[in-house]
């Protein structure tokens, strides 16, 4: 039977999961350098043993209410291709194995952004596990105000078309 290993974590009242092969490590909250002008969901940058990793707050990303309790959030460091991005979550859960027969597509009642970012669900005995699409989660819309600037920048740095 097809099984997947899933790393689970809590954000607000949601039980979310990411396949373990996409998770590099789980860390306590680290000091984060803010990035002014960055999209709201980007909390900042952190130093992960010499590597600079972008930190995204899942609460902001999923448009959930802000974290209120005093406990610091946890880092779920994910790796997609070459990019390493850390997701801030409320609490780390267990690593569990799920079987395919429990899988269902994303439920209808999910609203807004969550619906785009949830790939599907596993009906666990006690609660519903929502599988997070990490790739989509770390893909943020660029702030509108930069698009113009970015385009000019790209235009002016195209050696292939003009230097032949």
């Amino acid at each position, binding site marked *: 039977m097809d099984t997947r290993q899933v790393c689970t974590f809590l954000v607000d009242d949601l039980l979310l999961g990411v396949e373990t092969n996409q998770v590099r490590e789980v860390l306590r909250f680290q000091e984060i350098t803010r990035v002014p002008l960055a999209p709201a969901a980007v909390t900042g940058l952190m*130093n992960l043993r010499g590597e600079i990793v972008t930190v995204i707050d899942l609460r902001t990303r999923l448009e959930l209410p802000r974290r209120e309790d005093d406990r610091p959030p946890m880092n779920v460091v994910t790796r997609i291709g070459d990019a390493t*991005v850390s997701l801030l979550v409320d609490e780390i859960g267990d690593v569990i194995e799920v079987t395919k027969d429990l899988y269902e597509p994303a439920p209808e009642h999910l609203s807004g952004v969550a619906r785009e970012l949830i790939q599907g669900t596993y009906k666990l005995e006690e609660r519903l596990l929502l599988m997070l699409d990490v790739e989509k989660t770390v893909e943020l819309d*660029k702030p509108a105000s930069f698009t113009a600037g970015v385009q000019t920048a790209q235009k002016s*740095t195209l*050696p292939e078309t003009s230097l032949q």
Partner: protein
Amino acid sequence: MTSEENSLEGMEEVILEFLVESAEGLDQMDNDLVALEAEPGNQELLANIFRTIHTIKGTCGFFGFSRLEKVSHVGENLLSRLRDGELALTPEIATALLNMVDAVREMLSKIEASNSDGEEAYAALVETLTRLKDQEATATGGDADAGPETDSAKEGSEGAEAAAVQNPRQDGARSKGNAPESPAEKRSDSESAASDDKSAGRGSLSVAESAIRVDVDVLDNLMNLVGELVLARNQILAYSLARQDPVFANACQRLNLITSELQQDVMKTRMQPISNIWNKFPRVVRDLSRTCGKQVRVEMEGKDTELDKSLIEAMKDPLTHLIRNAVDHGIEPPDTRLANGKPAEGRILLNAYHAGGQVIIEISDDGAGIDLDAVRKKATGMSLITSAQASQMHEGDLARLIFAPGMTTSKKVTNISGRGVGMDVVRANLEKIGGFIELDSVRGRGSTFRIQLPLTLAIVPALLVCSADERFAIPQGSILELIRLHPGNSEKGIETIQGVPVFRLRGKLLPLVYLNAELELDDAGRQADAMNIVVLQADQKKFGLIVDTVEDSTEIVVKPLSNVLKAIPVYAGATITGNGKVALILDVLGLAQRARLLSEHQERFLDVNATSAVLGEDDERQPLIITSGKDGGRIAIPVESVVRLEEFKRATLEQAGTRTVVQYRGKVLPLVNLTDLLQERRRKPRPMTSDGPDTADEIVHAIVYSIDGNPIGLVVDRILDILEHSKNMQGPPTRKGTLGTIVTQGQVTEVFDATSLQREFAAPRQRKRAASAGG
């Protein structure tokens, strides 16, 4: 070991070696051929060329690349006749041989891609090479039996070479590293032996023994690791400073030294001589100049100047572009040159050297120089500048406009250059790698492009600054100077012109950017007690960046940002500082763009700076404040005697006797309306004070003069611009209080006579002083 016993894997290894060596050989051959054209009798060059193609032919025959063998074979035959002095090198032969080099190169790349030399037989090329060999033989040799004679000669040479190539084969299979010389020693034919003696005499054998090939990936990885080490060292040093432990401090000191040395040595492994890219240029120039019908010679100085491999790669396209431009636009056709008293042959000089921790590369030509009239016409046509500006601009500034997007002065669009994209891209590409390009051009004498580059990209010196408790790194390369404004005094020197903060730096206006405001930091708008201005250079424009504090200067390792953040143009990357925290690296150009410093309104201020900077001591020109009165007339006020520009709310103006005054820095500043001062027949002065709530918030612009140490405010309706203009008047004075008229930005402008202010205020001030003393 014979070829049959070679495993496939072994073969691939050998083929790979063959490809690498052949590529190097072909590059050399390009140069040698071009050099040979200039110096047809040089036997050494000929021998070099011959040997290269000979080795390629032999080795590819061994691998069974028959088409490649065929092409190189006919080329070799032609070359052997040249070498034997039976033929003279003509441009036609040189072109055919260069074409052969291209064909061989093409086939080699096919071999690299598909392990086969392709389907293309290069029949036309083979035919040309054969024809050249045979035809010229009859012409020069004058032998009646040319046909059979050449045939037998071919046979003969083939036989001789068959013997010669045996050795390279075996050596090739054994060890390619030192192959070029060893087979040669065993060669029996005298020509080869003679030519090889020369190469052995150059001592290249020892080079082969003392050098090894290393995969670039390994070096890149090493560089990354050293980068990490530098960061770790910075962290440890910061920690050791906080602790008063002499033993630990000693160890740290050693760590510091060793890391620096290691960093330098690892950087050295990535260094390559600039000749790696330059070597392609003689060929490029030769081909281009033939297409354009020009005669151009390339000279190089400082070929051995080394710079980082990544920079070499990045420099390739911009340099090629500049060289092409020099041939296509710079050097004139031979007849024009002769008519102008220059030698028919143009000269392009490439020069490279190290200076002040940077690499300088210069590309000069002795051609026509930049056609400033064409630049002027084009720039005004594109509305980059107004025609009035164009007429005032200094030549250097005008020439520099060629770096603006869309500028080309070529009359016709050729397939080489002149398509309107180019210099701006060159500049952008250079700036992307931390470089900087300048231009000197003298009409009729030629142009020189000077490129400044950092030695390496991976580790750069940077200044750490703080704004709103956030730390940022600014690459030292773009920092011109630091200015500290002391607490309490910080307001002094910062003025606002039309909402733009500017700082008066040695008589020049420097536009200012508040970092906290630009980055929308929490305390944007808060006025710090002390301010630091970091004067930056972006795109040949100067501006001041206001930060809270300036910390130390340190070496940082530039790390790229993730894709999401790359979209933000104000950051060039991030780095880890000594305390282990992440700091963002500011992109000076991006910051200037975001602050809209490089566009419209504010750019004109910057132009003033650029112009006056170039003018230096030139006293022929002066900066002028252009104002407009209620009637729309333009009045220029010389900046010379101006102390400050101020803005007051109309509600703050008070009436004191006959004068309107305002409280200003603990003094009473008398105000006078510029238009009142200039009235031909003095009418009743217009009231300046607020006459109701509607006008209370209006802003009054005052130009503050100092007369006998006391400030006088000259009130103007609107400040339009600040620009430079010749001190010479273009028209007579129109009324009292003016010096004359000039044309600025296409409109007639009266120039205000500042001494009239002095006359006006000499007596009344006495009166007012008495009045204020009494009250």
